[in-house]
């Protein structure tokens, strides 16, 4: 019960910076656009241009829109149903996974912010607000819970535990091809859980990833590679900086049911040569000490009545560890027993800073449905943001991660247009 109050308080206290209170907006007066999302499996930028994409490779290469072929009313449902079952594009199908998500989108704005309201039904009869834990095995602390595509979960050695997400990619027309092919420009072979996944040795030998201090392969835009279909051919960082300065990146806003929801926010990132966080500090960070891997923080028993939980308490209540609200520094001598668990991430609204802390959010899960409102300030001037402005039209893509999964395990949309007070697939309505 205490947590329910906390969440309301958190949302409302953050609301002081908003011109309109999204809780009070009469959303019944804002048009709803149904955006079907489907499971894409490993249909990467490279696969779409290969002969395996029968009848479509030539068209994709010349820049045609996905919907120039895939435009039937139930197209997304059919594609998702086909792909989720497994096959050449889905080597490790997740048993019982839903193939399709019916996302409802509404948009509004006032003088300060844009408000995006999303609703979708979850596969499970509980909100996916749990995330990975650090579990004491009697000797040391180890990660407990993994996304469902991971081998340890598929083999039954670990439970599937991963937060739900609602993501939104925004292009202001400066990324060639995004208006036609949307998120598929960013999704490549070699990335995590994709075909020909990277090896540690390849990453260690890669000049670009070493220069930007990354140890895996994630989303990137074609313009950042000499050969867009080969992640290993990164351009020099100076050249990539020029692309960024010219606005050749897409914004990526992600509402996370654990790591941002608990503090009334959505994270703020962008995709260019990698899936980057915006400058500043995210609202979440690792709770594991780099050297010992033991936790940095534990729950404050004086405030919440416990310092840790066990697996039996999963899905029973909100298990958020928030630095300024309910956390104290980890005490290694607190009588830890095998099976004790604390969250693998420490969250903080107070510590979130800079461009990474631009987006607020409020959310509620009820009767099997998430309702999420993301609040995005208009006219952001940071060099890692797409500035939304009245009269502007943007290309947008949406994704939902549902049921303890990450990477390709999401459901995605074909690209749509968003107009701030102007005609588009999704028109943001000006609030009185």
């Amino acid at each position: 019960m205490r947590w329910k109050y906390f969440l309301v308080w958190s949302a409302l206290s953050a609301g002081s910076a908003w011109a309109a209170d999204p809780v009070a907006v009469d959303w019944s007066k804002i048009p709803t656009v149904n955006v079907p999302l489907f499971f894409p499996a490993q249909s990467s930028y490279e696969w779409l241009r290969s002969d395996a994409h029968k009848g479509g490779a030539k068209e994709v290469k010349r820049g045609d829109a996905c919907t120039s072929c895939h435009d039937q009313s139930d197209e997304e449902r059919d594609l998702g149903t086909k792909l989720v079952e497994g096959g050449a594009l889905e080597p490790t199908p997740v048993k019982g996974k839903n193939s399709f998500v019916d996302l409802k989108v509404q948009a509004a704005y006032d003088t300060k912010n844009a408000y995006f309201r999303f609703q979708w039904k979850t596969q499970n009869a509980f909100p996916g607000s749990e995330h990975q834990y650090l579990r004491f095995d009697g000797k040391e602390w180890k990660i407990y819970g993994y996304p469902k595509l991971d081998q340890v979960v598929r083999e039954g050695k670990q439970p599937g535990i991963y937060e739900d997400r609602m993501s939104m990619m925004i292009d202001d027309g400066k990324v060639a091809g995004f208006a036609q092919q949307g998120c598929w420009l960013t999704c490549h072979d070699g990335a995590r859980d994709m075909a020909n996944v990277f090896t540690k040795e390849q990453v260690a030998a890669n000049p670009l990833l070493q220069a930007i201090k990354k140890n895996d392969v994630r989303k990137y835009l074609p313009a950042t590679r000499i050969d867009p279909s080969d992640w290993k051919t990164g351009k020099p960082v100076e050249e990539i900086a020029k692309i960024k300065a010219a606005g050749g990146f897409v914004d990526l806003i992600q509402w996370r049911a654990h790591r941002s929801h608990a503090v009334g926010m959505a994270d703020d990132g962008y995709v260019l040569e990698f899936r980057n966080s915006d400058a500043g500090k995210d609202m979440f960070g690792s709770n594991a000490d780099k050297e010992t891997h033991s936790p940095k923080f534990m729950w404050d028993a004086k405030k919440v009545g416990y310092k840790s939980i066990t697996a039996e308490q999963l899905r029973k209540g909100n298990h958020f560890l928030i630095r300024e609200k309910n956390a104290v520094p980890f005490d290694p001598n607190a009588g830890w027993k095998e099976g004790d668990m604390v969250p693998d991430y420490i969250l903080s609204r107070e510590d979130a800073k800079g461009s990474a802390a631009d987006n607020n959010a409020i959310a509620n899960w009820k009767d099997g449905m998430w309702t999420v409102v993301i609040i995005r300030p208009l006219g952001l001037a940071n060099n890692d943001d797409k500035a939304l402005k009245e009269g502007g039209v943007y290309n947008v893509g949406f994704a939902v991660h549902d049921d303890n999964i990450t990477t390709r395990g999401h459901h995605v949309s074909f690209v749509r247009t968003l107009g701030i007070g102007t005609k588009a697939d999704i028109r943001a309505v000006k609030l009185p």
Partner: protein
Amino acid sequence: MKHRILASMLIAFSTAVFISSQAVATPADADAATALAKRNGCFKCHAVDKAKKGPSYQKISAKYKGKPDGESQVIKNFTTGPKVKMDDGTEEEHKIIDTKNPKEIKNLANWILAQ
């Protein structure tokens, strides 16, 4: 009297033409035809009322409907894989649908001709 006879003849002629045109194309089972087309990815290149990579079904219908070999020409296109001209001027082999059932094939052709 002359006018009445002329009118009767006209009605009789129109009815005959109507009956004859009905007899040429068997009424199509639209659900079965679209299910077959969908299963074979036909709608990736064709739409009923707009040109995509391939011509609209309405345009195909306008070309072949009423012609003695119209139905067989339509069937030939999706059962033998002839070279067809794409919207960009290139040529590709037309996809061959995955059924050999004459009733299904005829039904799809008639559905196309009915657009």
